């Protein structure tokens, strides 16, 4: 009993899926870095696991992040994921209460209404019946949105929507068919047996008016089962692999695992967790401003999954990190782009024999490293020198006569070994100086010093350092009332989480105005060294758009704290673009000017910078 041939496709599908998943999970977990496994062991029976469960519920089922991006889009995902989840859970409960025992054939709940055509008497079961109908209705509503959205993305607030591979399309269609078919089969059955509830029964009765529902039912059940089976089998070969994988990802991530400088089993899991929702397409400035909608992470990960990754797809990315912030699955996308750039062919570490070794360095507590780019905007280092002087700080200008590159530009173009040579050279100098504080004006250097140099001294970007000096009353800054907007450099903001310090500093002596896309969502200036193959037109488009955006709040001054950003924005900005250090110096000088002619000033008069 409780068997009909049509259950075979579904059952087979489930089995195949189960096997394939098992195989993959084992492979990935065995590819984890040694350290990772210990971490898992250490964290398995901690609160972190509960956090993970909560996150799975919130993200994988409710899709909280997607809701944030767009409520309708969120509802769509939720209705499908959570709805389906409920169908399974509630369906299982239903059979439990019906049969009184928990163990049943696993396909039994799925085709429950086929196997149990006689209408329920108990109010509990009737309630379940109604609940199941309701959930199905919710899911179907999600499907409707999904289908509409496919043809009119803006419905779900998306400008561009992912272009899918044929495999994905097949899976998608299977998925779309499942629930309508479920509706039809259950309705047909209800049509002759009356075991349906408010939706299925009414649809069933309607069908019965002009259709031989008794004969049709079995056909629909077959199609339902086939579409289920088809979908199950397609999962491992389509983007829907993200459903099982993401759950695994969430656990591992909560246990403290991330993708570092090596590609590991975890990286593989991350990549497989991409649902290709396409949210990263809109957030990417290469698309929104550079008019290039082929290079986004969703395509990068897709091509990677099908091993057809082209160099330009790896190279043509600003590494600005905006997609990281937007990704609902929370994949460290830029890190993956970076790891794919890592290629032996580029590594010629032998080239740096000329670098200074063990040169005597003056002993100082504070050293300043301007960075290559700052040398092309000398106003920044000049300002810093003045500030050191004013604050009476004895320091060493380590790269006064030009820098040895910090190594990050090499690293972000995939040359980790070569980069290490530069790191070693600079590191030796820094340590030799015996400094306790290293100040740099370049966010690129800053990130590199922080992450790759393993210095046990304080590393500060000048925006942090200037704030400190001010708070220590070593710099007397006076309100000028000028309206300023601050541009977050990628490497400093999203790259190193320095959002507050520059703002605190600026707001102390200027009128800092906010702008929609700032901090985590700040735009990239377009100058990024991260993108290797961007062409001049695309670059200019991004620079122009960002400059335009910052001007849109019509500030008197655009402030930033990166020589590269300064250059890129200034190119296309009507408003003067100043480094934070310049503004400090201007303020100090205005002050000293005013002190010279103090008697002419009334008390409380603000000083113009």
């Amino acid at each position, binding site marked *: 009993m409780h068997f009909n041939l049509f259950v075979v496709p579904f059952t087979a599908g489930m089995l195949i899926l189960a096997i394939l998943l098992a195989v993959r999970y084992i492979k990935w977990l065995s590819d984890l870095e040694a350290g990772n496994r210990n971490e898992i062991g250490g964290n398995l029976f901690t609160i972190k696991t509960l956090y993970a469960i909560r996150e799975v519920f919130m993200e994988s089922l409710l899709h909280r992040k997607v809701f944030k991006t767009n409520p309708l889009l969120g509802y769509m995902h939720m209705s499908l994921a959570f709805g389906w989840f409920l169908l399974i859970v509630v369906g299982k409960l239903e059979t439990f209460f019906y049969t009184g025992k928990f163990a049943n054939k696993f396909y039994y709940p799925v085709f429950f209404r086929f196997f149990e055509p006689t209408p329920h008497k108990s109010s509990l079961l009737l309630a379940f019946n109604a609940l199941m109908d309701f959930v199905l209705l919710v899911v179907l509503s999600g499907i409707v949105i999904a289908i509409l959205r496919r043809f009119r993305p803006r419905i779900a607030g998306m400008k561009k929507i992912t272009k899918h591979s044929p495999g994905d399309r097949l899976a998608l269609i299977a998925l779309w068919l499942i629930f309508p078919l479920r509706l039809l089969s259950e309705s047909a059955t209800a049509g002759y047996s009356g075991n349906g509830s408010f939706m299925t029964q009414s649809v069933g009765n309607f069908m019965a008016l002009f259709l031989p529902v008794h004969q049709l039912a079995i056909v629909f059940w077959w199609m339902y089962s086939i579409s289920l089976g088809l979908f199950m089998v397609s999962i491992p070969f389509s983007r829907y692999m993200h459903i099982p994988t993401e759950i695994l990802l969430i656990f591992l991530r909560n246990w403290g695992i991330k993708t570092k400088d090596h590609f590991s089993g975890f990286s593989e899991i991350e990549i497989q967790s991409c649902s290709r929702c396409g949210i990263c397409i809109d957030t990417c400035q290469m698309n929104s401003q550079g008019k290039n909608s082929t290079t986004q992470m969703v395509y990068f990960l897709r091509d990677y999954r099908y091993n057809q990754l082209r160099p330009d797809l790896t190279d043509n990315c600003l590494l600005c990190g905006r997609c990281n912030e937007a990704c609902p699955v929370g994949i460290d996308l830029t890190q993956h782009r970076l790891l794919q750039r890592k290629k032996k062919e580029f590594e010629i570490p032998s080239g*740096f024999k000329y670098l200074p070794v063990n040169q005597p360095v003056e002993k100082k507590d504070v050293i300043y490293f301007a960075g*290559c*780019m700052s040398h092309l905007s000398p106003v920044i280092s000049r300002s810093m020198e003045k500030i050191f002087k004013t604050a009476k700080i004895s320091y060493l200008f380590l790269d006064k006569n030009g820098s040895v590159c910090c190594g990050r530009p090499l690293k972000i173009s995939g040359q980790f070994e070569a980069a290490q040579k530069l790191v070693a050279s600079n590191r030796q100098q820094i340590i030799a100086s015996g400094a306790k504080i290293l100040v740099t004006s370049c966010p690129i250097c800053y990130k590199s010093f922080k992450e790759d140099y393993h210095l046990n001294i304080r590393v500060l970007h000048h925006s942090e350092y200037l704030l400190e000096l001010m708070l220590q009353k070593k710099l007397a800054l006076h309100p000028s009332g000028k309206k300023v907007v601050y541009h977050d450099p990628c490497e400093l903001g999203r790259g190193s989480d320095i959002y507050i310090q520059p703002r605190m500093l600026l707001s102390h002596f200027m009128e800092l105005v906010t702008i929609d896309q700032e901090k985590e969502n700040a735009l990239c200036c377009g100058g990024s060294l991260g993108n290797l*193959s961007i062409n001049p037109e695309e670059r200019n488009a991004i620079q122009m758009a960002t400059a335009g955006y910052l001007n849109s709040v019509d500030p008197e001054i655009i402030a930033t704290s990166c020589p590269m950003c300064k250059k890129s924005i200034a190119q296309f900005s009507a408003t003067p673009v100043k480094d934070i250090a310049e503004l400090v110096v201007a303020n100090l000088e205005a002050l000293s000017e005013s002190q010279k002619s103090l008697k002419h000033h009334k008390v409380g008069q603000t000083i113009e910078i």
Partner: protein
Amino acid sequence: MKDWGYSILKGRQIDFENNDFSIAEYITKHEPSFRWCIGCGSCTATCSAARLTDFNPRKLKLLIQRGEIKGLADEIAKCMLCGKCQLVCPRGINTRNVIQNIKRALNTCHAL
């Protein structure tokens, strides 16, 4: 072999007909801006590596285009990829990608 006390020299002349342009072609294909150079030399002037060693990106690019690629790998390895050249180039050449593609080319066209 008897010692002549002198030997036949290979000239310094660029023998265009018998030179190897595979690298140049590869780069031009993958980074067309490689062609746009007018040899102004601002890249070399600003180059972080050129400050410390005998390295001349302008000349390097030129020799590649003339098919003179002997010792290219050793030369290109001196680049720190810091990107200053890209900021100063008046013709908007994507210099860092040129360097990157020189390295790719060295691998795909040659094992130099």
